[in-house]
């Protein structure tokens, strides 16, 4: 199994930590993982993205040109990464703030109302966990138990009391993910 993912959005959306939790979850089930962020001033104020790979085998390049899955959380990311999804691959996005929705016909497309659901949960910080839940519903590459372990690993222990809330958010994400198109 190898899953190659790009997660992209605004700086504040928790894109990087979402990738980190995913990667940690992979470690928890003995997979090889890599996590490669965009870095430098290009991040400033603007977009952030991270490439995450989980694999049963040694990972060669941590930087990719095309992905099994793209998780896109703003318009700029949509513009930049829609085209990079492999044929037959998966695109998951939050429609909030999206003007130009994805138009490719050869990929699976899903939506998750992450921002909206986070507002409902009265914690904008849960946004990325809701999106993660949606993703894991589509691609159960790591089991929930390991996600929780990964979450604990990537959170400093003083934040461990937030784990149940995050778990709830993940579950919520799994529930609300919507299929737009499958191929």
């Amino acid at each position, binding site marked *: 199994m190898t899953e190659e993912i790009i997660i992209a959005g605004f700086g504040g959306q928790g894109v990087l930590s979402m990738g*980190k939790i995913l*990667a*940690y979850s992979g*470690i928890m089930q003995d997979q*090889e*993982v*890599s*996590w*490669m*962020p965009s*870095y*430098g*001033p290009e991040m400033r104020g603007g977009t952030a993205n991270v490439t995450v790979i989980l694999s049963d085998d*040694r*990972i*060669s*390049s*941590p*930087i990719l*040109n095309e992905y099994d899955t793209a998780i896109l959380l703003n318009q700029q990311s949509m513009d930049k990464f829609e085209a990079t999804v492999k044929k037959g691959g998966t695109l998951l996005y939050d429609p909030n703030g999206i003007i130009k929705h994805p138009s490719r016909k050869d990929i699976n497309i899903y939506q998750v109302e992450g921002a909206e659901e986070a507002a409902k949960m009265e914690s904008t910080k849960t946004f990325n966990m809701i999106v993660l839940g949606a993703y894991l519903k589509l691609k159960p590459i790591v089991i929930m138990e390991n996600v929780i372990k990964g979450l604990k*690993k*990537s959170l400093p222990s003083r934040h461990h009391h937030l784990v149940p809330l995050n778990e709830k958010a993940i579950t919520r994400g799994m529930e609300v993910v919507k299929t737009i198109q499958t191929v």
Partner: protein
Amino acid sequence: MAKELRLMKGNEAIAEAAIRAGADAYFGYPITPQSEVLEYLMGEKPYEKTGMVVLQAESEVAAINMVYGGASCGRKVMTSSSSPGISLKQEGISYMAGAELPGLILNVVRGGPGLGTIQPSQSDYNQAVKGGGHGDYKLVVLAPASVQEMYDFVEKGFELSFKYRTPTMILSDGVIGQMMEKVELSEYKPRWTHEEVVKMHPWATTGKTADRERNIITSLNLQSDVQEEHNLKLQAKYKKMEEDVMFEEVMCDDAEYLFVAFGSSARICQKAIQNAREKGIKVGLLRPITLSPFPSVIIRKYADKVKGMLSVEMNAGQMVHDIKLAVEGKTKVEYYGRMGGIIPIPSDIVKALETKLIGG
């Protein structure tokens, strides 16, 4: 005992490894893409735990000279920077080599020349390997290709640098510095005590006691014959360093062609090997792990076996010359590379192999 696994950036791995290897001091100045080394250390406050000194210097020049000062005390001292900052350290590095000091220097290379780009590159190969500073000297140069190697090479780097009393450079790049992978952490090694240092490194400036002559750390020899003797001693040492050459062979057994690549490029070559072998091209990878000493002997050996070698680099073609020197004309050597922070694509590498060597 269960091994401790952690997901870390390459830069963080360096920092954590330093603490666990019992490093005595780190001196550095921020620069992308390696500022996490200093940031991580400052977050960990090792000065409160192991007593390791961590200091943000006023510049790269100050930092390398702090390393000189600390190393002269027989301690494990390190610094890190990226290309422009490493250029500024060249005088200091030459001084350290001249004064025969150990020490660890991490270069997380970005694209040059000049301010260039902050994206990953391997264009500081020549600087690291041929000596960017003045005079005849050599560093030990280690080229990690994973976050685990970033971690491991801290201890290895210190070891070699004390063994040969010459600075070790870890030549990494923005990919390996910024990416996270899982790392197996080692046990904490205690820092050397003052008494241990005095015993192990009788050359160090630890304070002149009655039982020995004063110790002097200098690279100055006003008399030419003394300086020449010193130079010859250094050259002999560099020759001896070849014992510690390190490289990795991937699918070389049946290979008709060889990729030669280090660091990030080597990882991408692994994917290129898969692609190529699917096409029926028998290609392997020879990955120099020590760029200095350079694995010339093994490359020379393969020169008799393979039909050609492709040096894959993230620069304009630098290591390719060392490969050519190694093969002594016995096989064809070509170069393929990308520049400016662009990572070569596996399919393009295979294409280059086909056009430059197989078709050519």
